[in-house]
């Protein structure tokens, strides 16, 4: 074990313009070990992962440093030579297998092509079987003859992993292999990867933005921020006692379904490419910053056995603390019902057949109550929300607001009822019109639905922005100039400008980084209490739900499986499907308690 499986020294990757993306990155992974690489979006994880294979994306160059894999130099080396090593010495599993598998090649063919090219002497049949077994996929001809689009997302990812493993590489780099998959599917895939780690001598680099996921897989974790590793250490220790304030902030921000508590976001926004200042890039968001931090970049230094940290003041990093749990809600009271859905049925007309998205769904939302709608992808959450907002015509059933039936489509509803129900959408990048200023976007509902005069608009905009804790100056800017979190706040401000009674939040945080997510969730929780809003909160993330909701409705295939108080449903689920969901939700074994991670159900992804 003299030569580590992966060694990177002083790796530097830049844009062609010379702006650095990744700087002085050193990594060393012993054979058979798994390194988890975590960090928020844009921190340079994928860039590093690709550089380990000597690969760079268009518009980017590897400007310096060395990478060796099992003694073979990958960087610097000419493309022709390094390419022959990819796939056989080190292989890569991409984030979105749906995009990365050749759409016009059958699964079997894609696997065989690897063999034919890298190991022509090996027998294709057994090799295929071996690789597919590792990822728990069938290896019969019928399966091999499928095209990628004929596989589910989880299967696609397993195929991608099988392709990466078929030539028995020394190192596999997995770049967010579970991001975008459903919790149940993700759990199954993670279990598979874990088994692989235990049963083979494969060295892995596991890249993810999700600390909980990485914690369940990796032997060691490296945390990246703004293109640099800020902390590295053995998984358990790093999670229990983070030394870098950023690592600590990340852990604090991860919601936990089993033990709900208030979340705490990291203030500010993550640093992007460019505009990096001479000092510590985390300094602007740091709570233990000293003047020195702004001037000089700390080095990545050992801080005890096997631990490295890049902070001058790491000794001052406070230990993790248990935050107060979410306040329990008042008892139910039928007279306080705001909105009611009665036997709601909805479907989508597909190309030929109808897809049922809701079948006989009934529930009620009380004034000031926060109700969560959870369920895996495609269970009909969004459709129900759109029915309530008048964007989708239900097939049957009624929606009652204060006991009065609402017209199916928004255009037919009264101005008043349109005002009282507001919706915020999932994707922060398309929830605001990029061609309208923030001010216009916020003022529009107020003017249309509340008849606000043109003159009164700026004042209204300012107060709306203040409510979502954004500076008033932002009103004249356009959405593309805003970060994802800021945009979601603006979207919320826009909804609030109508002074609604019910706010529907459809996965408002799922596209956001954890630190930002925490801040947005905090905001919603605050607004509820200060404005007495009712919230219909849609999410697939039980942790998030646990933090902000009073009641949970579990949905599957358009049918309500279980509903009840959040505490009870999440802690003591009764429906088998809910049980599965809850146990599949990743959670972190924090230093402040004594759980050992979470159980992994052995449910393979349904085809």
């Amino acid at each position, binding site marked *: 074990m003299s030569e580590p499986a992966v060694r990177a020294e002083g790796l530097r990757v830049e844009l062609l313009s010379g702006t650095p993306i990744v700087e002085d990155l050193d990594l060393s992974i012993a054979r058979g070990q798994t390194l988890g690489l975590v960090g928020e979006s844009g921190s340079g994880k994928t860039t590093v992962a690709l550089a380990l294979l000597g690969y760079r*994306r268009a518009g980017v160059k590897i400007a310096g440093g060395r990478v060796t894999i099992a003694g073979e130099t990958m960087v610097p080396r000419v493309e022709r030579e390094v390419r022959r090593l990819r796939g056989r010495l080190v292989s890569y599993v991409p984030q979105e297998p749906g995009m990365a598998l050749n759409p016009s090649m059958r699964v079997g063919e894609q696997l065989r092509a690897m063999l034919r090219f890298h190991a022509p002497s090996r027998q294709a049949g057994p090799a295929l079987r071996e690789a597919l077994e590792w990822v728990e996929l069938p290896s019969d001809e019928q399966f091999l003859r499928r095209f990628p689009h004929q596989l589910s997302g989880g299967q696609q990812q397993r195929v991608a992993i099988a392709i990466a493993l078929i030539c028995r590489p020394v190192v596999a780099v997995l770049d967010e292999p579970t991001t975008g998959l459903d919790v149940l599917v993700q759990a199954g895939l993670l279990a598979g990867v874990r088994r692989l780690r235990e049963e083979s001598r494969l060295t892995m680099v596991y890249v993810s933005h999700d600390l909980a996921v990485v914690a369940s897989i990796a032997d060691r974790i490296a945390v990246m921020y703004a293109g640099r590793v800020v902390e590295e250490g053995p998984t358990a220790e790093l999670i229990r006692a983070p030394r870098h304030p950023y690592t600590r902030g990340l852990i604090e921000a991860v919601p936990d379904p089993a033990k709900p508590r208030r979340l705490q976001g990291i203030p500010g926004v993550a640093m992007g490419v460019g505009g990096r200042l001479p000092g510590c890039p985390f300094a602007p968001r740091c709570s233990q910053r000293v003047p020195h931090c702004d001037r000089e970049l700390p080095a990545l230094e050992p801080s005890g056995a096997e631990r490295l940290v890049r902070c001058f003041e790491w000794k001052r990093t406070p230990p993790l603390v248990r935050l107060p749990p979410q306040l329990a809600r008042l008892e139910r009271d039928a007279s306080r019902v705001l909105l009611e859905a009665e036997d709601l049925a909805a479907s989508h007309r597909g190309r030929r057949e109808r897809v049922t998205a809701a079948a006989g769904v009934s529930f009620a939302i009380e004034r000031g109550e926060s109700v969560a709608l959870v369920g895996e992808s495609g269970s009909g959450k969004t459709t129900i929300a759109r029915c309530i907002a008048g*964007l989708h015509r239900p097939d049957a059933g009624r929606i009652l607001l204060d006991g009065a039936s609402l017209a199916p489509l*928004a255009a037919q509803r009264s101005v008043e009822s349109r005002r009282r129900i507001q919706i915020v959408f999932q994707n922060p990048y*398309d929830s605001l*019109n990029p061609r309208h200023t923030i001010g216009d976007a916020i003022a529009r509902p107020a003017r*249309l639905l509340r008849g606000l005069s043109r003159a009164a608009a700026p004042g209204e905009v300012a107060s709306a922005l203040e409510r979502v804790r954004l500076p008033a100056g932002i009103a004249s800017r356009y959405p593309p100039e805003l970060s994802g979190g800021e945009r979601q706040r603006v*979207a919320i401000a826009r909804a609030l400008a109508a002074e609604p009674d019910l706010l529907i939040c459809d996965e408002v945080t799922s596209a956001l980084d954890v630190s930002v997510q925490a801040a947005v969730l905090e905001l919603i929780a605050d607004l509820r209490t200060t404005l007495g809003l009712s919230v219909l909160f849609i999410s697939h993330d039980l942790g998030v739900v646990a933090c902000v909701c009073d009641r949970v409705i579990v949905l599957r295939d358009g049918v309500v499986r279980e509903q009840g108080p959040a505490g009870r449903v999440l802690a003591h689920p009764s429906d088998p499907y809910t049980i599965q969901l809850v146990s599949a939700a990743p959670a972190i074994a924090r230093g402040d308690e004594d759980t050992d991670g979470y159980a992994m159900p052995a449910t393979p992804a349904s085809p």
Partner: protein
Amino acid sequence: MRSWTGRIGAAIVIVLVLVAAIGPLVAPYSPTAIVGIPYQAPSGRFLLGTDSLGRDVLSRVLYGGRTVIGLASVATLMAYLVGVTIGLIAGYRRGLTDATLMRAMDVVIAFPPILLLLVLATGAGANALVLVIGVAITHVPGIARVVRAATLDVSVRGYVEAAAARGERSGFILGREILPNISSTILADVGIRLSGSILLVASVNYLGLGLRPPTADWALMISENREALTTQPPAVVVPALLIAALTIAVNLVADAVARSFGTSVEERGVAR
């Protein structure tokens, strides 16, 4: 526009538009006046010689850009007005409206373009308006399809849904919410379409289905004087070169524009 080819193209376009715009002010003779005997070689008096009727080639060249540039631009503009409207409505309304409009576009595409222009030119008389309408019609289906596809895409975005949820009128949603966001898709091929229009206007004029003599028009000049290609080359070659230069330049600009939209899309893709 960062590429040098794009800049060269833009420079040529500007020069030619200037020629067309101020040319008539500096032309030495009236474009229709017969000032000499036909097909005189270039001389001090007639810098580019004379044409088939003894008119001054230079003066006709200076006047002749207006029709090509003007008509092609107007036709393209009209095509966009109609095509964008159809595409927006089809893409936003979906369903039956969409199907009907798109089938109508299919019909227009299947109508042989020459027949369309022939019927228009012979039926309604050959004049600028007919030419513009004919050229515009040939573009409409293509534009409508592109706009429709883009609209389909944009109309499911959160901000459009939000507008629908607060009960905005369709006009507002189409004009204020959707249109600004598909403008780059629309603009990306304006240049290509404009140069297509120029070629079509020129070809139609050349075939005698468009403008008629004695209009001074580059394409007409080519067809009027083409038999003097060997004896009085400037009368044919100069307008031919100008048309080619114009379309090449417009294409260069279009290319650069499309590429700049393309890269910005890419960058957005990468940044996410």
